[in-house]
């Protein structure tokens, strides 16, 4: 087992995609065949795997903190509602209609109609006028 063998530069050129598993099967075979005899490339593989894992962990922690720790009223992640406000006016979505009608059904003492509304939202008719 040598410290470094010929072809390291070429092998390391596709290391990131060996790590993220999008390299071709042939490249993966070549890489591991090479790494079996090359200590330096095995170290590079281990270091890159660790970096990739750390990146995923750090990004996940950052996103979780952004979602969980936003100051009150910060307005971050307005989500679909925020985006919909920026779209040009258009027809109401079935889901919008359901959202408006559910409180009305509850107030009118007709909770059994909420199920009908949900079915309508899941499988909207071509035109709302045809709803039975």
């Amino acid at each position, binding site marked *: 087992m040598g410290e470094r063998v010929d072809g390291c530069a070429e092998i*390391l*050129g*596709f*290391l*990131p*995609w060996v*790590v*993220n*598993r*999008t390299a071709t099967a042939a490249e993966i075979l070549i890489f591991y065949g090479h790494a079996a005899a090359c200590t330096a490339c095995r170290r590079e593989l281990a*270091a*890159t795997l660790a*970096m*990739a894992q*750390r*990146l*995923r962990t*750090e*990004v*996940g*922690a*950052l*996103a*979780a*903190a*952004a979602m*969980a*720790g*936003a*100051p009150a009223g*910060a*307005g*971050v*992640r*307005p*989500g*679909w509602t*925020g*985006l*919909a406000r*920026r*779209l040009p006016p*258009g*027809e109401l*979505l*079935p*889901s919008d209609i359901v959202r408006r009608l559910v409180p009305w059904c509850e107030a009118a003492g007709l909770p059994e109609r909420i199920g009908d509304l949900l079915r309508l939202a899941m499988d*909207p008719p071509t035109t709302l006028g045809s709803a039975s």
Partner: protein
Amino acid sequence: MDSEDRSLLDRIAGGGREALRRFYERHAPGLFRFALARLGDPYGAEDVVQETMLAVWQGARSFKGASRVTTWLFGICRNKVGDHLRGRETPTAPESRMAEAGWQNRPEPAPMDFWTAFRALKEDHQEGFLLAFHYGFSREEMAAILGVPVGTVKSRMYHARRLLRELLDKGCGQGGRGRVG
């Protein structure tokens, strides 16, 4: 997954707002993480997500189907991140910006100060890391997203990997904010 995205894009191209809502729910979290890691600013990241989705709404017809929908989508998103960065002062580490904005429950600073090291990389190196290691894009997809040849992607990743490793090994970046690479 891609076939559902294509179907949604077809409907978005025809003015389908419900399809856009579903497309948003499928992709907004991933785009938000990408933008947040690049900008370090949750408000800015959400702006980027919304701008990206507006571009999808306006440009769904321009998707020709030559790539996966996510490849096309991240190409738009990274351009929106670039627009955002050009319109503001020097980016700082995400944790710092979140603390400035009054964020609570932010993660404890890592011993090696990962984000300081990450931000010390050039922007195209940061993009490469995120696309390869957080999102798992292939070389060809990364080349399409970044608008550069595959050889350039390989070269960037080679240098980015080496530089980030050196920075983390040194426990870097505790001082200066200069870019390396």
